[in-house]
Every structure is written in C-alpha cells, then in structure tokens.
C-alpha cells in the first residue's frame, strides 16, 4: 500500500472542513448559498476518510502511518507536528466525518431561515476540522492545540443563538468548565514534556519502556495520568465537571447531536485511550471511579427531567461515564467500541429529538407531547431503534458494545474481587432502559395525547419532518443495528472493529500495573491468561444479566408509562425529597454557584481590597494623621467634644481605605512611591 498516497488522502480529510469554513465565510457576502461550499467539503471529508478506512480495513491493527515534520527547533529539543494512523484514528476519523455529514444534511432543513445560516455551517466546518485534528495527531502538543480549538468552536456553536441569555450563559459555562479541565491537562502535558522531553505518543512510550519515570517515582506517573485525564473530565463532561453538558443543550439541536453526543465529548474518551499506555493502576482506578460516578449520577437525574434534550444529555453523560469506567478497568477496546456505537445512536437520538422539536414547532417539554407515532411515523421508527440500541437490546449495536463493557466489569470483579463497578454497570443499564423507554412511551405512544390533539385542533400542524431530515435519521438507525459492527449479533468481540483493535498494551512498569496485566511483560498483548479465561467465563453471564437489567428497565417503564398502572404523581409526592434532589440534578449547579462563583467573587474582592489598601491605605492614613497632627494645637475641650465625631470620621476613613484604589491620579504620590520603593528594595537586598 502506498503510504504517501494515504498521507495525502489523510491530509485532504483533515483540511477539507477547514477549507469549507474559510470558503463559506468568504462566499457568505456574495451568495445566500454559501453553505453549499461547506456541504461540498464535508462530503470530501467523508469520501477521503471512507477511502482511508476501506483501503486499510484489511490490516487495521498493524497499520501505522506517521508522517511528521519539525515545527520548532531548539538546540537539543525538537517539536514535531505529525499524524498517526492506527485503528483508533482511522475508524474515528470516518465516524466523525460521517456523523458530521449527516448532521450537516439534517441542518439544511432544521436551520433553514436562520439569520446566520451560512455562518452556522462555517462553524460546523471549523468544528469538524478541529475534531479531525484531535483524532489524527501523534503528539500531545498538537492534540492540546486542537483540543482548545474544539473548545472554541463548541463555544461558538453552543452560543450560536447568543441573543438568548441562556444560550450565551451556557456557552460561557461550557467554556469555563472546560478550562478547568484543560488547566489540568496542560499541567500534565508539561509534566510529560519535562519528563520525557517529547510530546509524541511514541516518544513517551519509548521513554516509559526504557524506564524513565517522572521524578523517578510511580506516584508522579499516576499524577501525570490523572492530570492528563483532567482534560477528559472537562471535554467528556465527567463528574464533577459534568454540569456544562446539559446546559449546552441551549445550542441548536443538530449541534447537540454532533458535538455533545457523538464527537467532542468522545474526544476526551479518545484521548484517555490514546494515553492508556502510560496510565498506572492507581491512575486507572481514579479514572474508573470518576467514570462510575459519572455513569450513575446522571442516570438518576435523567428520569426526572421533562426537557427531551436534557434527558438525552443526561443519558449521554451516563454513557460517557460507562466508557470512561471501562477504560479505568483496563478494557479500552470495549470502551472504544461503545464510543463508536454510541456515537451513531446518540447522534440519531438527538437528531430525532430535533425532528420532534421541529415537528412540534420548537416544543421541548415532553409533558406537552404524546402519541406522536401517529404524526411522525418515520421519526418514531428511528427513535425506537435508537432506544433499543441504547438500552442494550439484542440485534442492536448497543447491545454488543454495552455487553462488552459489562463483561469487562465482571472480569475486573472476578480478578480483583471488587464488584462495585459491575454493580454500577448493571444498575446504569437498568436505569438507562427505564428512562429511555419512558421517553419513548411518553413522546410517541402514550403521554399527553389530548394535549397534542388540542394543539392540533387549534390549527397548529404537527407533522413529519421533510425527507432531508428524515433520511439522516434512518441512515443512523440502520447504523445502530448489529451487522455494521459484527455479523454475530451476540458477540461484538468478533466483529471487524474489535478485531482490528490492538489489545491494551501498557508501557507502565510491572509493579504499577493492574495485577491481571502485570505478568505480560512488555509484549503487545497486555493481558494475562487469567484475563482471557475470565473473559470467556463471564461472557454469557454478563450478557444474560445485562439483558435482564434492560428488560427490567423496559418492564418498569412499560408498567408506568404504557399501561399507566402507576400514578407517577403519588410516587413523586411520596418521595418528594429524593425526587426534588434528583430533579434539581443533585444541586451541582447550586453548589458550584456557591463555591466557584462566590469564591471567585471573594477572591477578587480580596485582591481589590489588597489593591486598595496597601499603598493607598498608607496615603490616606498619612493624610489623616497629618490632619490630626495639625489639629494638635486645637483646644482640649474641642478635642473632647469632637472626639466622637473624629472617631467616626476615622472609621469611615478606614472603610474608605478599603474601597479606594491604588492609582490615586496624584502624580506626587507616585513620586513618593518611587522613594518608598527604593528604600524598601534596598533593604530587601541589603540583608545579605
């Protein structure tokens, strides 16, 4: 295979969306149809990525094309920019391109008539470009650069309707929450660089294998892993930075489908998979715990929400948590598998929700929906398939991938004796099935049918969306079925995707790995025999249990929302405190409001106060004292009489000190500062 040819295609795939972005913005002035430029280039992106996938499909897990060039050169240090194609990046590159293309198509209708129509497409282009960059890079530095670029473009897209305060607030929230994570990631990257002198994944791996550890300590290796993982906490909205994702639903729905379901949030997971080789057991445990929390908490919130997009957002959080947890348990292949299948059906779910919202004239509250199956049959069909997939019902892709993750939790349990992650996994499966079917029943089958009819009788048409929107839905629905991933509907492990993937290969020294990986040495396959044994042993048990949980969730939803045997209101009333707690999303926002916002305010106040006091305080005090001194000649009784008044004056003066600022505008005071500074500087340095 001609690798030069492949590199060319890859570069085309990478830069096509950027070309789309630029040309759309340039053409915007002259034509209303500028967005077709973007459509064209995203098409190019899909074709190029597809070609790459097809041409390399035969030997996915052996392939490595790396082309790199020097970017910055120092004596002794060189920074390279480069591309790396392995199974992960090629598959994800195609996945991103395909979903992005479908979202573009969907948006043609959904965003029609928006006053910033072309700009919207341009933003989608820059987003896709940044995402491509993350996917194909071979080093952390470049990844970080594109990482920030993704953050920026997502900021633009979430705040696309910035006239809405909620939208611009949400955009800001997302931006800030991501900065928290990125800060950690940057620190991690710096630590990597200080330790290994390189940013490239291969370089780090080599360094680790040759025994270099940060500060020569396993602890710092774990710290490094966790710091890098911070980036994923932000991007993939993991606990405790998950709060931005539900709010990000303020953006246009196709954007939610693209960014907040399929691609950007997956970037965090992808990054952790990329750096998996340097994660020590301790770091992995932290990741697993964070993943478990992120899987569980949103799942409990999801079934109390009424906004159709919010339910999906919490479900996304929960699924991302599962993936991260799986990585933490050492099963990164399974996590990636779930990442891919989830990308398709979750993007589909959002688009379907978009279709519903479109059909209902921008109604998002499921309490106002019901029986939509009748009016939107195709959307319903697609939605139903996605729901089956996400709940993990056989014959869908979701069944295979989720099963793989659950299997991994059980393997982990049996090898380490720690079953808590398995419990979380199955619990989440149960909850997922429950709230997803709740949504399906309430929106499409039962629910507020009378309300919708009432709505229609008032002349509002509730209609199926036009084909340009429905077709992407159906394509995604098809992609959520098993044949696209494996021909054996019961086992994803044998599918091309999982087969094409390399087994986990950790470069971490033996003592710092999970015990079940410790004996494998430095070979490519990172697991011991016992791991594979357990994997066969638990395969069917996990499958059965997973089915049971999914069915349980379905059954509960069926009873409550289809048969409507249970009055939800009575239960709501009964468990009022719990319900309120869940409904208010565990009060995370409020908590952060208090902690972060208040804290920031407080800090700035303190700084302000400091600013105001240090020198200006001195000045004012001086002024005050001067006045006092000159008053000394005054009469004693006057002093006594005025004493109280003066005391108050001093008091207010002191408060004034706190409020005024350093820069008084009086030039002579500045000159005095020079003298004071000189004297202080002198004494500061004369101490030696």
């Amino acid at each position, binding site marked *: 295979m001609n690798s030069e040819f492949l590199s060319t295609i890859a570069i085309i795939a990478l830069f096509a969306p950027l070309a789309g972005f630029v040309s759309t913005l340039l053409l915007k002035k002259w034509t209303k149809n500028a967005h077709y430029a973007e459509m064209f280039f995203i098409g190019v992106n899909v074709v190029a990525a597809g070609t790459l996938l097809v041409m390399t499909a035969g030997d996915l897990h052996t392939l490595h094309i790396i082309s790199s060039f020097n970017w910055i050169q120092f004596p002794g240090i060189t920074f390279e920019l480069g591309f790396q194609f392995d199974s992960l990046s090629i598959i994800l590159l195609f996945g991103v391109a395909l979903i992005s293309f479908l979202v573009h198509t969907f948006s043609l209708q959904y965003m029609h008539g928006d006053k910033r129509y072309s700009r919207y497409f341009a933003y989608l282009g820059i987003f896709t470009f940044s995402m491509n960059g993350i996917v194909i890079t071979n080093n952390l530095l470049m990844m970080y650069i594109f990482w920030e670029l993704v953050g920026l473009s997502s900021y633009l897209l979430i705040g696309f309707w910035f006239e809405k305060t909620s939208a611009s607030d949400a955009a800001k929230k997302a931006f800030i929450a991501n900065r928290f994570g990125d800060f950690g990631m940057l620190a991690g990257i710096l630590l990597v660089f200080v330790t290994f002198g390189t940013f490239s994944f291969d370089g780090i791996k080599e360094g680790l294998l040759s025994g270099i550890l940060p500060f020569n300590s396993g602890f710092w290796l774990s710290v490094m892993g966790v710091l890098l993982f911070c980036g994923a906490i932000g991007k993939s909205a993991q606990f405790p930075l998950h709060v931005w994702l539900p709010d990000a639903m303020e953006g246009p729905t196709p954007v939610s489908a693209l960014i907040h379901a399929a691609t950007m949030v997956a970037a965090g997971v992808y990054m952790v998979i990329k750096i998996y080789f340097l994660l020590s057991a301790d770091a992995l445990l932290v990741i697993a715990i964070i993943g478990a929390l992120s899987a569980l908490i949103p799942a409990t919130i999801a079934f109390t929400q009424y906004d159709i997009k919010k339910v999906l957002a919490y479900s996304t959080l929960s699924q991302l948590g599962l993936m991260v947890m799986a990585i933490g348990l050492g099963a990164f292949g399974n996590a990636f598998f779930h990442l891919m299948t989830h990308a398709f059906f979750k993007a589909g779910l959002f688009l379907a929700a978009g279709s519903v919202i479109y059909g209902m004239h921008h109604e998002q509250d499921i309490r106002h929906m019901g029986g939509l199956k009748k009016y939107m049959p195709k959307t319903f069909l697609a939605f139903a398939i996605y729901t089956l997939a996400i709940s993990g019902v056989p014959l869908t892709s979701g069944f295979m991938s989720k099963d793989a993750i659950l299997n991994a939790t059980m393997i982990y349990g049996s090898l380490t004796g720690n079953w808590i992650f398995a419990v979380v996994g199955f619990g989440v499966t149960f909850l997922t099935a429950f709230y997803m079917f709740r949504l399906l029943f309430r929106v499409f089958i039962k629910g507020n049918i009378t309300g919708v009819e009432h709505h229609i009788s008032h002349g509002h048409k509730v209609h199926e969306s036009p084909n340009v929107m429905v077709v992407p839905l159906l394509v995604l629905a098809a992609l959520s079925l098993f044949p696209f991933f494996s021909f054996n509907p019961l086992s994803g492990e044998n599918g091309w995707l999982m087969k094409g993937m390399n087994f986990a290969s950790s470069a971490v020294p033996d003592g710092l790995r999970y015990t079940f990986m410790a004996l494998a040495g430095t070979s490519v396959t990172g697991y011991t025999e016992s791991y594979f044994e357990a994997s066969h042993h638990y395969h069917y048990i996990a499958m059965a249990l997973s089915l049971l949980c999914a069915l349980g969730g379905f059954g509960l939803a069926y009873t409550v929302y289809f048969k409507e045997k249970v009055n939800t209101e009575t239960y709501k009333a009964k468990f009022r405190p719990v319900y309120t707690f869940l409904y208010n999303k565990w009060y995370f926002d409020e908590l952060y409001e208090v902690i972060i916002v208040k804290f920031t305010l407080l800090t700035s106040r303190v700084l302000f106060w400091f600013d105001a006091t240090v020198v200006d305080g001195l000045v004012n005090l001086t002024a005050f004292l001067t006045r006092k001194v000159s008053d000394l000649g005054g009469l004693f009784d006057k002093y006594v009489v005025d004493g109280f008044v003066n005391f108050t004056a001093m008091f207010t003066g002191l408060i004034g000190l706190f409020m005024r*600022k350093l820069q008084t*505008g*009086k*030039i*002579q*005071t500045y*000159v*005095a500062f020079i*003298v004071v500074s000189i004297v202080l500087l002198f004494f500061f340095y004369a101490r030696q």
Partner: protein
Amino acid sequence: MTEITLYHFLVISSLLFSLGLYAMITRRNSILILMGVELMLNAANINFVAFSHFGNFGASGHLSALVIIVLAAAEAAIALAIVLNIYRTFNTVNADEADKLKE
C-alpha cells in the same frame, strides 16, 4: 574644627537630594516641583565634582557635571512649557489637581 573631607560634601549632596525629592512629593505647585528637580540634579553634580576632586579622577567628573547642567536647562525649558500648558487647560499649576486620569 574638623578637617573637611569628601564626606562633608557627600552629606550636603544627600541632603540636597532628599530635600529636592521632598519638594517633588509634597509641594503642590508645579514650579516648586521643578525646583525640586533642580535641587536633585545639583546634588548629583556635587557628587561628581567632589568625587572627581578627592579621588583625583581628572576631568571626567567635571565633564559629567557640565553635561548635567545642560540637561537640566533643557529639561527646565520643556517643563516650563508643559506647566504653562497645564495652566491654560486647568487654570491652576497645582500638580495634584490634574488627577482626572486615575485608578
């Protein structure tokens, strides 16, 4: 009476220097501030000449003193123009009343 040494001159120069700074800091009238500058420059000049004399450094200290005198004259010219301009715009020459620019 003690013999007059270098330190006597240096002490005078320190005093002049500090008095000049004091004028710059405390006197509100811009012209007095300028006088403060002249005092400080004179102090530096005394240093140059005194060091040159007692250290037997030759003419270089004198040269420096001459240069500083010229610079002082140039600075005074510009300074006065600026003060006049301030007087025209603010109708005062008190430096601390020109404090619109702050914080």
